[in-house]
C-alpha cells in the first residue's frame, strides 16, 4: 500500500452540504450509571468535530445516540432541522464507522461497499460506478473481489470508510476508527479522512481518546469527562488555554507549579517559587483576589533551557534524565523544591548533560493559569 499523500484529484462522491447537528439536554444512563448528563452541543454544517475524552467518558454513547443506535433517556437530537431523537438508525441516512470496522465477513469488499446502495434500490450499473469511485477515493482500487479477512487492518478500515461514504451521507460518525492501527498508518489515514471530509463537505463527528489525533484533524474539539462537556473549542485554544485542570492535563504533558495572588503596586500578580512573579490573566483577576491560590501550568515545549540565568520567570533545576525522541529531547529535571519538571527541546539544539544544573525559562504570557477547586492547592 502506498503511504504517500492520498490522492484527492478524482472528484468522486458528490459534494454534499453537511447537516447541522443539535444535541439538546441529552441524558442517558445504563442501569444506575449516569453516562451522559444534560449534554448540549451543536455541530455546524460541514464541521469536523472531535469528541475527546478518557475511556468511559461517554463518547461512544453520545455518538450512538446521534447515529440512532441508542435512544437517549432524555433530550433530543436535531439534524438538519429535523428532530431525529426517536428515528431508527436506518432512516437517518448517516454514515457510521465502527471501531472494529464491522465489515460483513461473508461479503467481498465490492459487496460490502455496494450494500447501502443495493438497500436503496439503485440500479446495478450505477452501483458499480459508485463503488468503484468510492474505492478509488480511499485508494483501494482493484481490491473489490477480496474478502475482508484478506485485507490488512488499514485496508479494512478504508473499506469501512468507503462503505460509510458511498451513499453520500450528510453526516458521518466515526468511533475511534484508527484505534488499532500503527502510527504511520494512522497519520496517513488521518490525512485521508480529513481531505475527504473537506472535499465532500459532510459534517463529521469523530471519537478518539488520542489528543494528538484530535488536534491534527478537528475544526473543534469537545473534551469530555464523566459524561459532560469540559471544554469546547478549536484545538489551539484547548491546548493553550484549557479552562480546567482536567483538560490541561488530558490534552498534553504539563508541569504544574503552585502560585499565590499578591497585590503589587499596579494590580495583582502571581507569586510562584524562587521569587518569580507572573502576570495575571484577566479571567483570573475577575474572580480572585489577594491571597488566593492558583495553579500555573507550563507545557514542556514552552521551556528554554540555559546554563546561566537570563531574564524571568526562571527556575533552577538539576537534569536527571535526557531521552532522545527523534525531533526532540525530553529532559526530566528536578526543581530545588524537589518537584519533577519535564522539558522538551528541539533536537537541533544541544542537550544538557545529565547531572548538570540548568535554568529553565519560559514566556510568562504563555503560562496556563488554572483556578483550582476549593481546598486544593
Amino acid at each position, binding site marked *: 500500500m502506498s503511504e504517500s499523500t492520498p490522492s484527492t484529484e478524482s472528484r468522486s462522491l458528490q459534494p454534499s452540504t453537511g447537516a447541522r447537528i443539535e444535541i439538546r439536554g441529552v441524558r442517558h444512563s445504563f442501569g444506575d450509571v449516569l453516562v451522559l448528563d444534560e449534554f448540549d452541543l451543536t455541530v455546524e454544517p460541514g464541521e469536523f468535530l472531535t469528541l475527546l475524552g478518557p475511556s468511559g467518558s461517554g463518547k461512544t454513547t453520545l455518538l450512538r445516540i446521534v447515529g440512532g443506535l441508542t435512544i437517549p433517556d432524555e433530550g433530543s437530537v436535531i439534524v438538519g432541522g429535523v428532530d431525529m431523537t426517536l428515528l431508527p438508525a436506518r432512516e437517518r441516512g448517516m454514515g457510521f464507522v465502527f471501531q472494529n470496522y464491522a465489515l460483513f*465477513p461473508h461479503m467481498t469488499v465490492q459487496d460490502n461497499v455496494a450494500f*447501502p446502495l443495493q*438497500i436503496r434500490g439503485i440500479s446495478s450499473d450505477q452501483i458499480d460506478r459508485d463503488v468503484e469511485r468510492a474505492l478509488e477515493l480511499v485508494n483501494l482500487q482493484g481490491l473489490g473481489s477480496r474478502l475482508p479477512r484478506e485485507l490488512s487492518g488499514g485496508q479494512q478500515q478504508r473499506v469501512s470508510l468507503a462503505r460509510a461514504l458511498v451513499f453520500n451521507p450528510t453526516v458521518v460518525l466515526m468511533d475511534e476508527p484508527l484505534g488499532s492501527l500503527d502510527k504511520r498508518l494512522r497519520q496517513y489515514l488521518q490525512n485521508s479522512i480529513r481531505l475527504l471530509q473537506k472535499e465532500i463537505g459532510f459534517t463529521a463527528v469523530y471519537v478518539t481518546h488520542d489528543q494528538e489525533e484530535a488536534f491534527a484533524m478537528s475544526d473543534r474539539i469537545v473534551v469530555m469527562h464523566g459524561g459532560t462537556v469540559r471544554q469546547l473549542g478549536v484545538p489551539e485554544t484547548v491546548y493553550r488555554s484549557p479552562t480546567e485542570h482536567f483538560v490541561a492535563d488530558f490534552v498534553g504533558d504539563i508541569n504544574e507549579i503552585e502560585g499565590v495572588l499578591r497585590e503589587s503596586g499596579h494590580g495583582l500578580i502571581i507569586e510562584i517559587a524562587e521569587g518569580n512573579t507572573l502576570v495575571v490573566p484577566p479571567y483570573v483577576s475577575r474572580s480572585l483576589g489577594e491571597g488566593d491560590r492558583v495553579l500555573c501550568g507550563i507545557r514542556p515545549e514552552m521551556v528554554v533551557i540555559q546554563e546561566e540565568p537570563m531574564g524571568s520567570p526562571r527556575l533552577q533545576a538539576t537534569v536527571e534524565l535526557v531521552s532522545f525522541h527523534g525531533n526532540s529531547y525530553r529532559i526530566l529535571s528536578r526543581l530545588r523544591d524537589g518537584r519533577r519538571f519535564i522539558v522538551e527541546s528541539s533536537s537541533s539544539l544541544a542537550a544538557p548533560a545529565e547531572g548538570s544544573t540548568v535554568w529553565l525559562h519560559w514566556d510568562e504570557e504563555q503560562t496556563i493559569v488554572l483556578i483550582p477547586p476549593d481546598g486544593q492547592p
Partner: protein
Amino acid sequence: MSRGGWRRRTRRRPYRDSLVGLALLLPCLVVVLLFFAYPLIGVFVRSVSDPAPGISNYVEIFSSRAFRNILRLTVEVSLLTTVGCLVLGFPVAWYITTLEKRRAQLFLVLSTAPLWVAILARLYAWTVILGRRGLINDSLAAMGLVQEPLDLLFNTRAILIGMIHVMLPFMILVLYSSMSGVDESLVESADSLGARPRQTFVRIYLPLISPGLIAGSLLVLIMSMGFFILPAVLGGGGDITIPIYVQTQIRLFKWGIASAMSMILLIVTLALFALLTKVFDPKSVVVGGSRR
C-alpha cells in the same frame, strides 16, 4: 503479527510438531479404529458373504417393494424432523441470545433439561399423552369435541412428534452457539447503512449463522436416520424404519441382510450429508472472520 510468529515457529520444527500432533491424536485414533472401523469392515464383509458370497443380499433388498417404503419412510421422517427442529428451535435459540448472560444460561439449561431424562421414560410419557385413553384424547372427549378417540399414537405422526421432541435440544444448543457468536456491531452496521430488519436478517444474519444451521441440521438428520428405539416405541410396529428392520432381521438370524441394510443406511446417510454440505457450502461462510 503474532500469527506470523506462530507460523515461523511451526516451520522451524515441522517434524517434532507433527509428532506431537500424532501423539495427541493417538488415543482417539485407537478408539475409532478398534470400535468403529473394525466392526464396520466386519459388517461390510458379512453383507457380501452371509449366507453365500456375492451381492445376493443387496439384490434381495433392492428388488423388494417393502424396502423402498422403509427407505422412503426413514428419509422422510428424518428430513421432517430436521425441518421441524429448525422451525421450532430457531426462535428459541434466538430468544436466548437476547437475554442477559445469567438468564440465558438458565434458559439454555431449561431447554436442554429433557436430555437428562432417560429416553425410554420420555417415550413412554408420550404414549401416555398420545394414547387412545391418553391425556389428549381424554381432554378432547371431556370437552365433547370428539366422539371416538383419535388415533394419535402408533403412526408416523407420533414418530415425528417424538423425534422432534428428542432432537430439539441438540438443535437449540447448536443454533444458540452460532447465534451468540454473531457480532452485534454487524447488525447495527447494516442498520446504520439503511437496511430494514428483514434485509438485515436475510443478507447479514442468516449467512452469518449458516454454519450453525448446517451443523444443527446435519446433527439432527444423522441422529434421526439411525434412531431405533423411538420409531419402535411410538410407531407401534406399524411404521418400519431401517434401524427397526435391521433389528428384526437380526432377530431372525439373517445377519447378511441386516448387514447389507446397515451398509445402505450408512451410504444413504453419507449421501444426504454430502448433499446438504454441498448445497449450503459452509466454507463460503465465515463467522466473525474467525475462519481462515
